[in-house]
Protein backbone atom coordinates (compact mmCIF):
# COMPACT_ATOMS: atom_id res chain seq x y z
CA UNK A 1 0.00 0.00 0.00
CA UNK A 2 1.33 3.40 -1.01
CA UNK A 3 0.10 6.64 0.54
CA UNK A 4 1.62 9.82 -0.90
CA UNK A 5 0.61 13.35 -0.01
CA UNK A 6 1.77 16.37 -2.00
CA UNK A 7 0.87 20.01 -1.40
CA UNK A 8 0.98 22.46 -4.28
CA UNK A 9 0.63 26.25 -4.30
CA UNK A 10 -1.75 27.95 -6.69
CA UNK A 11 -1.25 31.69 -7.08
CA UNK A 12 -4.57 33.17 -8.12
CA UNK A 13 -4.23 36.44 -10.00
CA UNK A 14 -7.69 38.00 -9.87
CA UNK A 15 -10.62 38.09 -7.46
CA UNK A 16 -12.52 35.09 -8.86
CA UNK A 17 -11.16 32.51 -11.27
CA UNK A 18 -11.00 28.83 -12.07
CA UNK A 19 -7.47 27.43 -12.37
CA UNK A 20 -7.10 24.10 -14.18
CA UNK A 21 -4.90 21.91 -11.97
CA UNK A 22 -5.47 18.63 -13.86
CA UNK A 23 -1.85 18.41 -15.05
CA UNK A 24 -0.54 18.76 -11.49
CA UNK A 25 -2.92 16.05 -10.23
CA UNK A 26 -1.94 13.69 -13.05
CA UNK A 27 1.73 14.32 -12.35
CA UNK A 28 1.40 13.50 -8.66
CA UNK A 29 -0.46 10.29 -9.57
CA UNK A 30 2.16 9.33 -12.13
CA UNK A 31 5.02 9.93 -9.69
CA UNK A 32 3.32 8.09 -6.81
CA UNK A 33 3.92 4.57 -8.14
CA UNK A 34 0.26 3.66 -7.50
CA UNK A 35 -1.36 1.52 -10.24
CA UNK A 36 -4.74 0.86 -8.61
CA UNK A 37 -6.20 3.15 -5.97
CA UNK A 38 -7.67 6.59 -5.36
CA UNK A 39 -6.58 10.20 -5.55
CA UNK A 40 -8.09 12.90 -3.33
CA UNK A 41 -7.72 16.57 -4.24
CA UNK A 42 -8.71 19.16 -1.67
CA UNK A 43 -8.18 22.81 -0.88
CA UNK A 44 -7.13 23.89 2.59
CA UNK A 45 -9.18 27.07 2.34
CA UNK A 46 -12.75 28.01 3.20
CA UNK A 47 -13.10 30.81 0.65
CA UNK A 48 -12.00 28.63 -2.29
CA UNK A 49 -13.11 25.32 -3.77
CA UNK A 50 -12.36 22.33 -5.96
CA UNK A 51 -14.59 21.79 -8.98
CA UNK A 52 -14.80 19.23 -11.76
CA UNK A 53 -16.29 20.38 -15.04
CA UNK A 54 -15.64 20.63 -18.76
CA UNK A 55 -12.56 22.61 -19.66
CA UNK A 56 -14.11 25.47 -21.58
CA UNK A 57 -13.47 29.15 -20.93
CA UNK A 58 -17.12 30.01 -21.57
CA UNK A 59 -18.25 27.43 -19.03
CA UNK A 60 -15.74 28.66 -16.48
CA UNK A 61 -17.28 32.12 -16.76
CA UNK A 62 -20.83 30.74 -16.52
CA UNK A 63 -19.97 28.83 -13.36
CA UNK A 64 -18.38 31.84 -11.68
CA UNK A 65 -21.28 34.07 -12.70
CA UNK A 66 -23.83 31.55 -11.43
CA UNK A 67 -22.10 31.18 -8.08
CA UNK A 68 -22.02 34.99 -7.81
CA UNK A 69 -25.77 35.07 -8.42
CA UNK A 70 -26.34 32.42 -5.76
CA UNK A 71 -23.94 33.88 -3.20
CA UNK A 72 -23.13 37.50 -4.09
CA UNK A 73 -20.13 39.18 -2.54
CA UNK A 74 -22.01 42.45 -2.13
CA UNK A 75 -25.75 41.77 -1.89
CA UNK A 76 -27.97 44.83 -2.10
CA UNK A 77 -31.01 43.53 -0.23
CA UNK A 78 -29.39 41.92 2.80
CA UNK A 79 -26.18 41.71 4.78
CA UNK A 80 -24.00 39.01 6.27
CA UNK A 81 -23.46 38.33 9.97
CA UNK A 82 -19.85 37.59 9.03
CA UNK A 83 -19.32 41.37 8.64
CA UNK A 84 -17.77 41.86 12.07
CA UNK A 85 -14.37 42.08 13.70
CA UNK A 86 -12.61 38.72 14.05
CA UNK A 87 -10.10 39.13 16.84
CA UNK A 88 -8.21 35.94 15.92
CA UNK A 89 -7.55 37.38 12.44
CA UNK A 90 -7.09 41.01 13.44
CA UNK A 91 -9.51 42.12 10.77
CA UNK A 92 -13.15 42.21 9.83
CA UNK A 93 -14.82 39.35 8.02
CA UNK A 94 -16.45 40.65 4.88
CA UNK A 95 -15.94 37.75 2.49
CA UNK A 96 -19.06 35.78 3.39
CA UNK A 97 -19.90 35.57 -0.32
CA UNK A 98 -16.62 33.75 -0.94
CA UNK A 99 -17.26 31.34 1.94
CA UNK A 100 -20.76 30.61 0.66
CA UNK A 101 -19.46 29.92 -2.84
CA UNK A 102 -16.97 27.51 -1.29
CA UNK A 103 -19.80 25.69 0.48
CA UNK A 104 -21.77 25.47 -2.76
CA UNK A 105 -18.90 24.20 -4.88
CA UNK A 106 -17.32 21.92 -2.31
CA UNK A 107 -13.71 21.66 -1.29
CA UNK A 108 -12.59 18.31 -2.75
CA UNK A 109 -12.73 15.82 -5.60
CA UNK A 110 -11.95 12.10 -5.72
CA UNK A 111 -10.98 9.95 -8.72
CA UNK A 112 -10.12 6.27 -9.07
CA UNK A 113 -6.72 5.26 -10.37
CA UNK A 114 -6.44 2.26 -12.68
CA UNK A 115 -3.36 1.11 -14.51
CA UNK A 116 -1.45 4.06 -13.06
CA UNK A 117 -3.76 6.68 -14.61
CA UNK A 118 -6.60 8.88 -13.43
CA UNK A 119 -10.01 7.41 -14.31
CA UNK A 120 -12.12 10.37 -15.45
CA UNK A 121 -14.30 11.49 -18.31
CA UNK A 122 -12.52 12.75 -21.38
CA UNK A 123 -13.89 16.27 -20.89
CA UNK A 124 -13.56 16.41 -17.13
CA UNK A 125 -10.99 18.81 -15.72
CA UNK A 126 -10.07 19.44 -12.10
CA UNK A 127 -10.19 23.10 -11.13
CA UNK A 128 -9.02 25.08 -8.16
CA UNK A 129 -11.77 27.67 -7.69
CA UNK A 130 -10.70 31.04 -6.30
CA UNK A 131 -13.46 33.14 -4.76
CA UNK A 132 -11.42 35.74 -2.83
CA UNK A 133 -8.21 36.35 -4.75
CA UNK A 134 -5.58 37.22 -5.55
CA UNK A 135 -3.93 34.92 -3.02
CA UNK A 136 -1.35 32.16 -2.85
CA UNK A 137 -3.42 29.06 -2.07
CA UNK A 138 -2.62 25.53 -0.97
CA UNK A 139 -4.05 22.42 -2.59
CA UNK A 140 -3.44 18.95 -1.13
CA UNK A 141 -3.23 15.94 -3.43
CA UNK A 142 -3.23 12.52 -1.74
CA UNK A 143 -2.72 9.26 -3.60
CA UNK A 144 -3.55 5.90 -1.98
CA UNK A 145 -3.29 2.45 -3.53
CA UNK A 146 -1.34 -0.60 -4.59
CA UNK A 147 1.80 -0.43 -6.72
Amino acid at each position, binding site marked *: MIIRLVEITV*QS*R*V*ERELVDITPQVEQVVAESGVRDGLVNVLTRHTSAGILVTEGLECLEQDILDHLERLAPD*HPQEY*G*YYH*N*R*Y*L*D*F*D*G*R*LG*FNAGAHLKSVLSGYFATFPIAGGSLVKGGRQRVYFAEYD*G*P*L*ARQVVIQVLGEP
Partner: protein
Amino acid sequence: MMDFHCHPVLVEEMVARHPELERAARQVFSIGNRFQPLETLLLELDVSGLERTVLLPIEATRTRGLPVYTNEQVAELVALAPRRLVGFASVDPLATDAADRLERAVADLGLRGLKLSPPTQEFYPDDPRAYPLYERACRLGVPVVMHTGMSWEPRARLAWGHPARLEPVLADFPDLRVVAAHFAWPWSLELAALALKYPNLFVDTAALYFDNPDDFIADLFVHRLSLTLIERSLRHQVVFGSNYPRVEIKNMARAVRRAGLSEPTLRLLFHDNGLRVLGEVSG
Protein backbone atom coordinates in the same frame (compact mmCIF):
# COMPACT_ATOMS: atom_id res chain seq x y z
CA MET B 1 -2.84 55.83 -8.61
CA MET B 2 -1.76 55.00 -5.10
CA ASP B 3 -2.71 53.35 -1.82
CA PHE B 4 -1.29 55.50 0.97
CA HIS B 5 -1.74 53.01 3.83
CA CYS B 6 -0.28 49.51 3.67
CA HIS B 7 1.36 47.40 6.38
CA PRO B 8 3.73 44.86 4.81
CA VAL B 9 3.39 42.45 7.73
CA LEU B 10 2.41 39.36 5.71
CA VAL B 11 5.13 39.38 3.04
CA GLU B 12 6.58 35.88 3.34
CA GLU B 13 9.89 36.65 1.63
CA MET B 14 10.66 39.13 4.41
CA VAL B 15 9.54 36.74 7.16
CA ALA B 16 11.83 34.09 5.67
CA ARG B 17 14.77 36.51 5.81
CA HIS B 18 13.85 37.98 9.20
CA PRO B 19 12.00 35.42 11.35
CA GLU B 20 11.30 37.99 14.08
CA LEU B 21 8.83 39.61 11.70
CA GLU B 22 6.45 36.71 12.36
CA ARG B 23 6.29 37.65 16.04
CA ALA B 24 5.88 41.31 15.10
CA ALA B 25 2.95 40.43 12.85
CA ARG B 26 1.23 38.12 15.29
CA GLN B 27 1.96 39.67 18.69
CA VAL B 28 2.38 43.39 18.01
CA PHE B 29 0.30 44.01 14.90
CA SER B 30 -2.20 41.27 15.86
CA ILE B 31 -2.89 39.86 12.41
CA GLY B 32 -3.73 36.18 12.00
CA ASN B 33 -3.82 35.74 8.24
CA ARG B 34 -1.42 33.50 6.34
CA PHE B 35 1.80 34.96 5.02
CA GLN B 36 1.73 35.62 1.29
CA PRO B 37 4.36 36.11 -1.39
CA LEU B 38 5.07 39.70 -2.38
CA GLU B 39 3.41 38.85 -5.68
CA THR B 40 0.04 38.69 -3.91
CA LEU B 41 0.42 42.28 -2.69
CA LEU B 42 1.37 43.45 -6.18
CA LEU B 43 -1.58 41.57 -7.68
CA GLU B 44 -3.83 43.21 -5.08
CA LEU B 45 -2.68 46.56 -6.40
CA ASP B 46 -3.29 45.38 -9.98
CA VAL B 47 -6.86 44.24 -9.39
CA SER B 48 -7.50 47.50 -7.53
CA GLY B 49 -6.28 49.59 -10.45
CA LEU B 50 -3.38 51.04 -8.47
CA GLU B 51 0.30 51.32 -9.34
CA ARG B 52 1.92 52.03 -5.96
CA THR B 53 1.47 51.62 -2.24
CA VAL B 54 3.05 53.28 0.77
CA LEU B 55 4.58 50.84 3.26
CA LEU B 56 4.19 51.84 6.91
CA PRO B 57 6.35 50.36 9.69
CA ILE B 58 5.90 50.96 13.43
CA GLU B 59 8.91 51.36 15.73
CA ALA B 60 7.45 49.73 18.85
CA THR B 61 10.56 48.49 20.64
CA ARG B 62 10.08 50.67 23.75
CA THR B 63 6.44 49.70 24.28
CA ARG B 64 6.07 46.26 22.66
CA GLY B 65 9.60 44.85 22.67
CA LEU B 66 10.21 44.85 18.92
CA PRO B 67 9.47 46.89 15.80
CA VAL B 68 6.94 46.04 13.14
CA TYR B 69 9.66 46.33 10.49
CA THR B 70 12.85 48.27 10.98
CA ASN B 71 13.66 51.08 8.58
CA GLU B 72 16.33 48.88 7.03
CA GLN B 73 13.78 46.11 6.45
CA VAL B 74 11.41 48.57 4.77
CA ALA B 75 14.21 49.66 2.44
CA GLU B 76 15.04 46.00 1.74
CA LEU B 77 11.43 45.30 0.79
CA VAL B 78 11.17 48.40 -1.39
CA ALA B 79 14.23 47.19 -3.30
CA LEU B 80 12.29 44.07 -4.33
CA ALA B 81 9.73 46.17 -6.24
CA PRO B 82 10.97 49.76 -6.32
CA ARG B 83 8.46 50.96 -8.89
CA ARG B 84 5.49 49.70 -6.88
CA LEU B 85 6.52 50.30 -3.26
CA VAL B 86 7.12 53.57 -1.40
CA GLY B 87 8.85 53.08 1.94
CA PHE B 88 8.27 55.16 5.06
CA ALA B 89 10.39 55.17 8.21
CA SER B 90 9.34 54.89 11.83
CA VAL B 91 11.26 55.97 14.92
CA ASP B 92 10.49 56.22 18.62
CA PRO B 93 9.36 59.86 18.92
CA LEU B 94 10.44 60.01 22.55
CA ALA B 95 14.00 58.82 21.89
CA THR B 96 16.63 61.54 22.12
CA ASP B 97 18.11 60.49 18.78
CA ALA B 98 14.77 60.19 16.98
CA ALA B 99 15.43 63.09 14.61
CA ASP B 100 18.86 61.74 13.64
CA ARG B 101 17.38 58.28 13.02
CA LEU B 102 14.79 59.80 10.71
CA GLU B 103 17.42 61.74 8.83
CA ARG B 104 19.49 58.60 8.33
CA ALA B 105 16.43 56.70 7.09
CA VAL B 106 15.71 59.42 4.56
CA ALA B 107 19.27 60.19 3.51
CA ASP B 108 20.83 56.73 3.62
CA LEU B 109 17.89 54.38 3.01
CA GLY B 110 15.85 56.52 0.65
CA LEU B 111 12.67 56.37 2.75
CA ARG B 112 10.08 58.96 1.85
CA GLY B 113 8.22 59.82 5.06
CA LEU B 114 7.63 59.08 8.73
CA LYS B 115 5.01 56.85 10.31
CA LEU B 116 4.02 57.34 13.95
CA SER B 117 1.39 55.43 15.88
CA PRO B 118 0.56 57.10 19.21
CA PRO B 119 -1.59 54.18 20.46
CA THR B 120 1.20 51.67 19.81
CA GLN B 121 4.09 53.95 20.75
CA GLU B 122 2.18 55.31 23.77
CA PHE B 123 2.69 59.01 23.35
CA TYR B 124 0.52 62.00 22.62
CA PRO B 125 1.29 63.79 19.36
CA ASP B 126 1.67 67.14 21.16
CA ASP B 127 4.29 65.77 23.57
CA PRO B 128 7.11 68.38 23.52
CA ARG B 129 9.66 65.56 23.44
CA ALA B 130 8.46 64.76 19.91
CA TYR B 131 8.91 68.30 18.63
CA PRO B 132 12.54 67.92 17.50
CA LEU B 133 11.36 65.05 15.30
CA TYR B 134 8.69 67.21 13.69
CA GLU B 135 11.22 69.99 13.17
CA ARG B 136 13.54 67.55 11.41
CA ALA B 137 10.74 66.16 9.23
CA CYS B 138 9.97 69.74 8.21
CA ARG B 139 13.59 70.41 7.37
CA LEU B 140 13.86 67.16 5.39
CA GLY B 141 10.60 67.93 3.61
CA VAL B 142 9.04 64.54 4.38
CA PRO B 143 5.43 63.94 5.48
CA VAL B 144 4.25 62.27 8.68
CA VAL B 145 1.52 59.64 8.66
CA MET B 146 -0.01 59.69 12.15
CA HIS B 147 -2.37 57.01 13.39
CA THR B 148 -5.55 58.65 14.67
CA GLY B 149 -8.71 57.10 16.05
CA MET B 150 -9.30 53.59 17.28
CA SER B 151 -6.64 50.92 17.00
CA TRP B 152 -7.43 47.20 16.96
CA GLU B 153 -4.19 46.37 18.74
CA PRO B 154 -5.17 44.88 22.13
CA ARG B 155 -2.94 47.13 24.27
CA ALA B 156 -3.61 50.33 22.34
CA ARG B 157 -5.82 52.68 24.35
CA LEU B 158 -8.35 54.92 22.62
CA ALA B 159 -7.11 58.11 24.29
CA TRP B 160 -3.77 57.95 22.48
CA GLY B 161 -5.59 58.29 19.16
CA HIS B 162 -7.76 61.34 19.82
CA PRO B 163 -7.16 63.88 17.05
CA ALA B 164 -7.45 66.88 19.39
CA ARG B 165 -3.90 66.15 20.55
CA LEU B 166 -2.76 66.64 16.95
CA GLU B 167 -3.89 70.26 16.73
CA PRO B 168 -0.85 71.83 18.46
CA VAL B 169 1.43 70.03 16.01
CA LEU B 170 -0.54 71.31 13.03
CA ALA B 171 -0.50 74.83 14.42
CA ASP B 172 3.16 74.85 15.44
CA PHE B 173 4.42 73.24 12.21
CA PRO B 174 2.40 74.75 9.36
CA ASP B 175 4.93 73.50 6.81
CA LEU B 176 4.71 69.90 8.02
CA ARG B 177 2.48 67.71 5.86
CA VAL B 178 0.56 65.42 8.23
CA VAL B 179 -1.66 62.55 7.13
CA ALA B 180 -4.15 61.55 9.82
CA ALA B 181 -4.78 57.86 9.25
CA HIS B 182 -8.10 56.03 9.61
CA PHE B 183 -10.09 59.28 9.41
CA ALA B 184 -9.72 59.30 13.23
CA TRP B 185 -12.83 57.17 13.61
CA PRO B 186 -14.88 57.53 15.86
CA TRP B 187 -13.79 61.18 16.01
CA SER B 188 -14.09 61.73 12.26
CA LEU B 189 -16.10 64.94 12.59
CA GLU B 190 -13.48 66.41 14.92
CA LEU B 191 -10.79 65.45 12.41
CA ALA B 192 -12.78 67.06 9.60
CA ALA B 193 -12.87 70.26 11.67
CA LEU B 194 -9.09 70.16 11.95
CA ALA B 195 -8.74 69.55 8.21
CA LEU B 196 -10.98 72.53 7.48
CA LYS B 197 -8.79 74.69 9.67
CA TYR B 198 -5.31 73.41 8.83
CA PRO B 199 -4.36 73.07 5.15
CA ASN B 200 -1.27 71.06 6.09
CA LEU B 201 -3.51 68.24 7.36
CA PHE B 202 -4.46 65.37 5.08
CA VAL B 203 -6.64 62.41 6.04
CA ASP B 204 -6.68 58.88 4.69
CA THR B 205 -9.66 56.64 4.03
CA ALA B 206 -8.33 53.59 5.88
CA ALA B 207 -11.34 53.39 8.16
CA LEU B 208 -13.24 50.16 8.73
CA TYR B 209 -14.48 49.19 12.16
CA PHE B 210 -17.76 47.36 11.53
CA ASP B 211 -19.93 46.09 8.67
CA ASN B 212 -18.00 45.91 5.40
CA PRO B 213 -16.03 48.47 3.38
CA ASP B 214 -19.01 49.49 1.21
CA ASP B 215 -21.36 50.06 4.14
CA PHE B 216 -18.77 51.60 6.45
CA ILE B 217 -17.40 54.13 3.97
CA ALA B 218 -20.94 55.07 2.94
CA ASP B 219 -21.87 55.56 6.60
CA LEU B 220 -18.73 57.62 7.24
CA PHE B 221 -18.85 59.80 4.13
CA VAL B 222 -22.62 60.25 3.81
CA HIS B 223 -24.08 60.04 7.32
CA ARG B 224 -21.39 60.88 9.87
CA LEU B 225 -19.83 63.47 7.58
CA SER B 226 -21.27 64.71 4.31
CA LEU B 227 -20.29 64.03 0.74
CA THR B 228 -20.44 67.76 0.07
CA LEU B 229 -17.96 68.35 2.90
CA ILE B 230 -15.45 66.20 1.04
CA GLU B 231 -16.43 67.37 -2.45
CA ARG B 232 -16.39 71.09 -1.73
CA SER B 233 -14.01 71.60 1.17
CA LEU B 234 -11.68 68.64 1.68
CA ARG B 235 -11.19 67.15 -1.77
CA HIS B 236 -7.57 68.30 -1.88
CA GLN B 237 -6.82 66.82 1.56
CA VAL B 238 -8.14 63.24 1.41
CA VAL B 239 -5.89 60.42 0.21
CA PHE B 240 -6.91 56.86 -0.49
CA GLY B 241 -5.63 54.38 2.09
CA SER B 242 -6.65 50.75 2.47
CA ASN B 243 -5.04 49.56 5.74
CA TYR B 244 -3.99 46.35 3.98
CA PRO B 245 -3.88 43.57 5.14
CA ARG B 246 -6.59 44.30 7.72
CA VAL B 247 -8.65 45.14 4.64
CA GLU B 248 -7.97 44.01 1.09
CA ILE B 249 -6.98 46.93 -1.10
CA LYS B 250 -9.54 45.84 -3.71
CA ASN B 251 -12.42 46.02 -1.23
CA MET B 252 -11.51 49.43 0.18
CA ALA B 253 -10.86 50.88 -3.28
CA ARG B 254 -14.23 49.60 -4.45
CA ALA B 255 -15.97 51.12 -1.42
CA VAL B 256 -14.38 54.55 -1.91
CA ARG B 257 -15.14 54.53 -5.64
CA ARG B 258 -18.81 53.67 -4.93
CA ALA B 259 -19.32 56.24 -2.16
CA GLY B 260 -20.82 58.84 -4.50
CA LEU B 261 -17.87 61.19 -4.98
CA SER B 262 -17.34 62.78 -8.38
CA GLU B 263 -14.75 61.43 -10.80
CA PRO B 264 -12.50 64.52 -10.45
CA THR B 265 -12.56 64.14 -6.67
CA LEU B 266 -11.77 60.44 -6.90
CA ARG B 267 -8.81 61.34 -9.12
CA LEU B 268 -7.59 63.65 -6.37
CA LEU B 269 -8.00 60.97 -3.68
CA PHE B 270 -6.34 58.17 -5.59
CA HIS B 271 -3.69 60.18 -7.40
CA ASP B 272 -3.02 63.89 -7.10
CA ASN B 273 -3.25 64.33 -3.34
CA GLY B 274 -0.87 61.47 -2.65
CA LEU B 275 1.70 63.00 -5.00
CA ARG B 276 1.40 66.30 -3.14
CA VAL B 277 1.89 64.60 0.23
CA LEU B 278 4.99 62.85 -1.06
CA GLY B 279 6.29 66.11 -2.49
CA GLU B 280 6.35 64.71 -6.02
CA VAL B 281 4.27 67.67 -7.18
CA SER B 282 3.96 71.08 -5.55
CA GLY B 283 0.86 72.99 -4.57
